[in-house]
């Protein structure tokens, strides 16, 4: 097994807020601590063998995370970089500088999943890591649904 994961980017401060866009399905939010957290499925990335995308709060507003490339009908969850690291995950900058939707705030959360196709660790998150991240995150934009 090869560990192909990039090192944690220590230039990202522990108190950096990481924003995650949440699709507003009826079961996406779970009430907790007087607020809401996203459920695990709502923070899961499109390819489990790859890192999951977030936005750096120092470089964008949560409304931009909600609206970028969408109709704006999304919730936004937040977790700090310190919380992510406390789960054993890493954070790196991954700005998208060209294309139809440039996003200088784009970053990646790196997990320890072993890709079953090549037996390498390339940064995807395990099911347990997604579950932990969802439980540590909190909803900061709760977009009302009809």
């Amino acid at each position, binding site marked *: 097994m090869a560990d192909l994961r990039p090192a944690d980017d220590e230039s990202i401060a522990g108190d950096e807020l990481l924003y995650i866009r949440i699709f507003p399905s009826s079961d996406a939010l779970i009430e907790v601590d007087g607020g809401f957290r996203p459920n695990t499925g709502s923070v899961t990335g*499109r390819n489990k063998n790859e890192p999951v995308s977030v936005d750096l709060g120092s470089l964008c507003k949560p409304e931009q995370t909600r609206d970028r490339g*969408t109709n704006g009908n999304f919730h936004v969850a937040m977790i700090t970089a310190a919380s992510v690291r406390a789960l054993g995950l890493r954070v790196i900058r991954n700005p998208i500088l060209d294309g139809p939707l440039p996003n200088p705030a784009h970053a990646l959360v790196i997990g320890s999943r072993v890709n079953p196709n090549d037996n390498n660790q390339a940064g995807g998150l395990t*099911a347990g890591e997604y579950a932990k991240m969802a439980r540590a995150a909190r909803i900061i934009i709760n977009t009302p649904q009809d």
Partner: protein
Amino acid sequence: MNAIATNIIVDRAGRSYSVQHTGITANRDIPTASVQLWKLEALRKVNGFEKLASNWDGWNSEAPNRATRQTAIDLLLSVPGDYETVRVVPVSGGGYQFEWSIGSRELEISIDGNANIEALRIKDGIPLEDEEPHDLVELFNWISSR
């Protein structure tokens, strides 16, 4: 009569186990009278996500395809026991996530866009990733036990 298909659940350690599918399709031909209400509600959500627009998540995901949807339907119909509810959300990449919660125990089952199934047990908020895998009956016996 439909042929019985099999899907494999693979845990983090690469151990696999199978879920048997009945091949039943959730449409007007389903004999729904014997299906529990929570399953009917979950099936309604599963079928509803068929109508998700292209790029529904802002990450270029498509709605779950027919094979993934059928896997989700078969999985739901195979679940033993009766439950108050199950959380159902679409997952980026064209998948589904089902989440059951009873007391301090949670069970999360994901189906990715290639119809691969993963299961995760959670006790007191802690994922049990290193535990031995179980078949579907054992998973639901576990979440139902106090």
